[in-house]
């Protein structure tokens, strides 16, 4: 059993009681909600005649269903309009702070909370969305929950949960040029497998992690769940504190000093005990691309899609399913596979630094004639910042469509969808069958820089050829 890790410390701090069955009752310091997984929870509160216990510990925004072409109300899609209206009504009724479209702070919940300074070290954070693990980048313990647990957090500010084990993933050395956080996390998921994290929190540490910016760290923690880990975190450091400083909801003045003192005390002890430790050599990682139907099925840009014989017995079943669904042949190179759609955005890679990197690749270049390319900023703030820097113009000049913020084609709950068996190069997080809106659509996950390179060439390409 782990001891004295950051996870242990934060868990123990938030433990309200040991429940009769043996699980723990855990206080949730920050609860984030959005339109898709909250309406039934509010409905359940009503049915049980319960109130929201601490309305000011819950913050709302709207992201999954918002259109990215035209956000004027009412939305063209009646169901989407009904969902945003329901959220507006629930927030008003229960006095929950809601960052709506046009507020300047709307966006993907996992982009918005950090940029508002809501996400802070040492907190427990829950949201009805699996990518809540993103917030662990700040040394908080953050995890996705289902709608019944959203109800429980609204009603009690606590949930019932079994304590997780802790696996340290020590990332040795540094990433080489043209290799990004996305490549690192895809590599980790490939090495450990998509279910290795079940029952674990992942602590990412080591020189490669220390060297990452906060936004890159968010990309890493965001995809913990794709490796099966409900929670992923990084010990906070000076980068963490300076990212939070002066944000809208960050502690100010004397409170800032108090916060800083406490945050600095929050990290895994030198001699803390982990349930498991894994070492990754970061300098050997290449730009990485998925070829299959799970985020674990990835290879380096210069590698070939694995043969069935090269895979462990446990991986063969899904590999066979993937060859068939993707219409790829074992042994085929990933490089040069034609792509038809290029998508930059999502809670994994829709932040300003992601847009900067992609724009750098695209500057002065044109998107291939055969490609539909679009960029969806992660939030209104990201969009505004990008415009100030002229990034929107670089994207538009290259042939990318510049859209309004939202989750968009990461999960295709709005009208941004693949058609038929189109192949997309996507900076999002899931390449599941049908994930991007077409039951036969195919997704290749990669870094935003690699999506930009694919857009220019109209096929999977090595971004290092553009930047070196």
């Amino acid at each position, binding site marked *: 059993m782990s001891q004295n890790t950051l996870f242990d410390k934060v868990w123990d701090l938030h433990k309200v009681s040991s429940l009769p069955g043996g699980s723990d009752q855990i206080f949730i310091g920050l609860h984030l909600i959005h339109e898709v997984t909250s309406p*039934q929870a509010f409905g359940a509160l009503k049915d049980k005649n319960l109130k929201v216990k601490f309305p000011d510990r819950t913050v709302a925004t709207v992201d999954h269903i918002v259109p990215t072409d035209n956000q004027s109300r009412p939305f063209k899609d009646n169901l989407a309009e009904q969902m945003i209206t329901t959220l507006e009504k629930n927030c008003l009724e229960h006095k929950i702070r809601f960052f709506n479209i046009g507020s300047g702070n709307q966006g993907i919940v996992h982009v918005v909370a950090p940029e508002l300074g809501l996400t802070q070290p040492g907190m427990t954070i829950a949201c009805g969305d699996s990518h809540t693990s993103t917030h662990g980048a700040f040394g908080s313990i953050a995890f996705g929950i*289902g709608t019944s647990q959203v109800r429980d957090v609204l009603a009690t500010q606590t949930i019932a949960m079994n304590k997780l084990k802790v696996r340290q993933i020590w990332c040795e050395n540094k990433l080489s040029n043209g290799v990004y956080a996305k490549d690192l996390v895809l590599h980790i998921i490939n090495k450990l497998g*998509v279910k290795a994290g079940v029952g674990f929190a992942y602590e990412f540490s080591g020189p490669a992690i220390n060297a990452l910016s906060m936004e890159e760290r968010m990309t890493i923690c965001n995809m913990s769940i794709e490796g099966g880990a409900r929670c992923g975190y990084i010990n906070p450091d000076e980068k963490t504190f300076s990212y939070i400083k002066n944000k809208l*909801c960050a502690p100010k003045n004397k409170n800032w000093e*108090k916060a800083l003192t406490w945050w600095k005390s929050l990290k895994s002890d030198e001699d803390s005990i982990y349930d498991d430790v894994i070492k990754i050599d970061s300098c050997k990682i290449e730009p990485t691309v998925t070829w299959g139907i799970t985020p674990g099925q990835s290879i380096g840009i210069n590698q070939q899609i694995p043969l069935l014989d090269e895979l462990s017995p446990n991986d063969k079943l899904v590999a066979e399913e993937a060859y068939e669904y993707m219409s790829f042949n074992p042994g085929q190179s990933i490089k040069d596979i034609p792509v038809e759609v290029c998508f930059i955005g999502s809670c994994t890679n829709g932040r300003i630094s992601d847009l900067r990197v992609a724009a750098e690749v695209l500057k002065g270049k044109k998107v291939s004639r055969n490609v539909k390319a679009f960029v969806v900023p992660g939030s209104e703030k990201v969009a505004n910042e990008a415009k100030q820097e002229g990034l929107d113009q670089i994207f538009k000049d290259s042939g990318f469509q510049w859209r309004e913020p939202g989750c968009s084609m990461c*999960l295709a709950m709005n009208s941004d969808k693949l058609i038929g068996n189109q192949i997309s190069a996507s900076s999002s997080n899931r390449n599941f069958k049908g994930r991007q*809106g077409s039951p036969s659509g195919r997704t290749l996950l990669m870094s935003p820089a690699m999506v930009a390179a694919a857009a220019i060439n109209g096929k999977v390409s090595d971004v290092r050829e553009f930047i070196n």
Partner: protein
Amino acid sequence: MKSEFTPPIGKITQIDGQCIALIGNDIDTDRIIPARFLKCVNFDSLGESVFEDDRKTLKGRHPFDLEENKNAAILVVNSNFGCGSSREHAPQALMRWGIKAIIGESFADIFYSNCIAIGIPCFTLPKKSIEEIQNYCDNQFLFLEIDLENSLAKSKDLTSNLEIKESTRKMFLSGEWDATSTLLANENLIENKFNQLPYIKFNTHLAI
């Protein structure tokens, strides 16, 4: 359409039903219920859309479309079932289709806790045992009686010790899987915790 859906309430000690095998590892919640069906403000109509895309692809040959499975209640799956999105819509859709318990090699964490929260016990068995059960119920009718008190599954010619986390098993036996009232009972402790947490004091701005 099946008989009207009634959600489970209170203690869950026994689940009897026909088994339905669904073969495949890493079956994610997008496949269980594609995202377009999440555009709803209640879970009521999800049952008919469970595995919609997989079912369409298989044109009537999907286990959930086979006539002989229409009354099945115990789903038998392989490893990492329910991975991906946290959408509770996935177990809600399974439950509304008729699933009352799941036996598998392993489950994804969030899916597993969503199942507990809505009253669907998930049991595990080793890969070999799961494959035996799946082979069996692919060829013939398998009716299982699951006794949660003893974690036993029985049929006319099979008895199997199911594995389930002790804390989870107790929650079903006591009815505490429906956690809200148990959590609310500690209201004083919650208030105390709120007052003790260091960051609540320097984050007063969260209030409207």
